[in-house]
């Protein structure tokens, strides 16, 4: 790699001063990591990674429309992702229906967003930022909005944690045991919509999966404990967002590649660790015997 490119990617001159300037961004990244890491566990348990991508495209469309109409990017992206999440939740209770609805929504959202951006005559940086992230520009009102939304998501998740896990694993048994399946699923979709909308603000709609899916997938590689998986997932997501912001500080490249690369490297590491551990366990585990039942 030539020194020029290296200098574009990483530069640590006056680092301490820069750090003060991006204090808001780092707080935003950490809170977002916590939120994304926690909800990611359920995205994996419910097998909804594809749905997250569709919601983020609609969130992008909403944000672009918000920019064009002057309503505001945050408001627009919230409206877009919430309506997408609810549509997917209401129409796609079965995986097959869900996939087709997602495939229908995704190109529409992307196309609509591009249309809005094409009509928008403002600053070009805003346009690009919606797709690939724009974390450096987190001012105080935006940080407040993000903190409020993320708290709603985290508190909401903690409240419905057990029944949500139950319906994710076996909806029929959960329903038989008295879990209000539809209400819990819709509540989850709303929380997911909120989480996607705030993630779009930071990493951009194209890369939301790196916060909402990759950390949880990585955590699942190394553990199956219902306590450890969410903790690790949140930790990985925070490491990726905060680490990505700190690495990107001096460079002149957008923030997202740093976040996504860190997230990917963590996943890779977890795969290696998990793989090695599984091989070890298989060697130790006695030949499978389904013992006679008492």
């Amino acid at each position, binding site marked *: 790699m030539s020194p020029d490119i290296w200098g574009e990617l990483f530069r640590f001159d006056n680092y301490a001063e820069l750090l003060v300037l991006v204090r808001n961004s780092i707080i935003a990244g950490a809170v977002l990591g916590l939120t994304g890491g926690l909800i990611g566990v359920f995205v994996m348990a419910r097998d909804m990674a594809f749905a997250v991508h569709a919601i983020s495209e609609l969130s992008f469309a909403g944000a672009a429309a918000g920019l064009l109409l002057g309503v505001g990017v945050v408001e627009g992206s919230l409206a877009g992702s919430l309506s997408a999440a609810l549509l997917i939740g209401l129409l796609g209770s079965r995986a097959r229906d869900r996939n087709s609805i997602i495939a229908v929504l995704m190109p529409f959202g992307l196309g609509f967003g591009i249309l809005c951006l094409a009509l928008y005559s403002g600053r070009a940086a805003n346009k690009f930022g919606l797709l690939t992230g724009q974390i450096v520009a987190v001012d105080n009102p935006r940080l407040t909005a993000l903190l409020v939304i993320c708290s709603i998501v985290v508190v909401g998740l903690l409240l419905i944690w057990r*029944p949500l*896990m139950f319906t994710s694993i076996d909806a029929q048994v959960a329903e038989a045991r008295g879990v209000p399946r539809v209400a819990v699923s819709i509540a989850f979709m709303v929380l997911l919509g909120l989480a996607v909308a705030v993630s779009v603000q930071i990493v951009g709609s194209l890369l939301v999966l790196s916060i909402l899916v990759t950390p949880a997938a990585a955590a699942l590689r190394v553990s199956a404990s219902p306590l450890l998986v969410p903790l690790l997932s949140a930790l990985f997501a925070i490491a990726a967002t905060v680490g990505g912001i700190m690495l990107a500080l001096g460079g002149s490249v957008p923030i997202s590649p740093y976040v996504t690369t860190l997230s990917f490297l963590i996943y890779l590491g977890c795969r290696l660790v998990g793989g090695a551990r599984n091989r070890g366990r298989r060697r130790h585990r006695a030949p499978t015997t389904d013992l006679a039942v008492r």
Partner: protein
Amino acid sequence: MPSRRPSVAELTEVRPAAAPAGAPPTTVLAMHGATLTFGERTLWADLDLRVRAGEFVAILGPNGSGKTSLLRAVLGTQPVTAGSIEILGQPVRRGHRLIGYVPQQHLADRGTPLRARDFVGLGLNGHRFGVPLPSRARRRTVDAMLATVDATHLATMRIGDLSGGEQQRLRIGQALIGDSRLLLCDEPLISLDLYQQRAVSTLIDASRRDGERAVLMITHDVNPVLDMVDTVVYLAGGQVRTGPVEEVLTTEVLSDLYQTRVDVIRTRGRIVVVGLPDGAHEGHESHPRGARG
């Protein structure tokens, strides 16, 4: 296929496997004239059934005859068109704490962040809101259930990594935990090898032997549980027959149910049914045309 009103099904009075000395066993489930129709189609009508604690009931019948709907009606997730269903003397309602349910097998995937012990524990308080907090009493209850279903050695394994038979035992543990009084199983032996079938059916049988619990089990093949079953509920063509195996699984009864000559042959301790109408063959889940009742 036109649906016909069945002749009055007799109220079953069946001997429990192990009644506690003295008092007669409690009635866990009572159905009176229960009828389920979807539009023009009658799945079953005038179903009278009394199931007592300690009893093992097998639900048989061709595909589409309403076996799963019957379990769902008992669970309260499928309202009946007419008649009544009572659980322990109370009308059915959704989310009854004393009913354990094992729906048709579907395997957990690796993306499930649960170990075997967590999976069984969901049966205890998975319906409660909030985050699960560790508790010693809960841990003991789960440990005891893991031992009952012979899964102590699997406790910390990822649920998605376990075999079909192992997962099925854990699902039964999840349904039994919390002292359920009625266990509903939908084809629990399907896609298991003979050894696992034996292990799972023995487990289900054992769960009612103390006389506290009744079992309702859908099965396409009665033979693996032939020596355990007290009562058979046979659904076919909109009609129902209930009674002991030797009274229901006969050439006369099945011929009458299917409106065609059906031979029931007992050979080497097994029951073989010959001459079922096309599409009504037992044991062929993938048959393209299930006999619709």
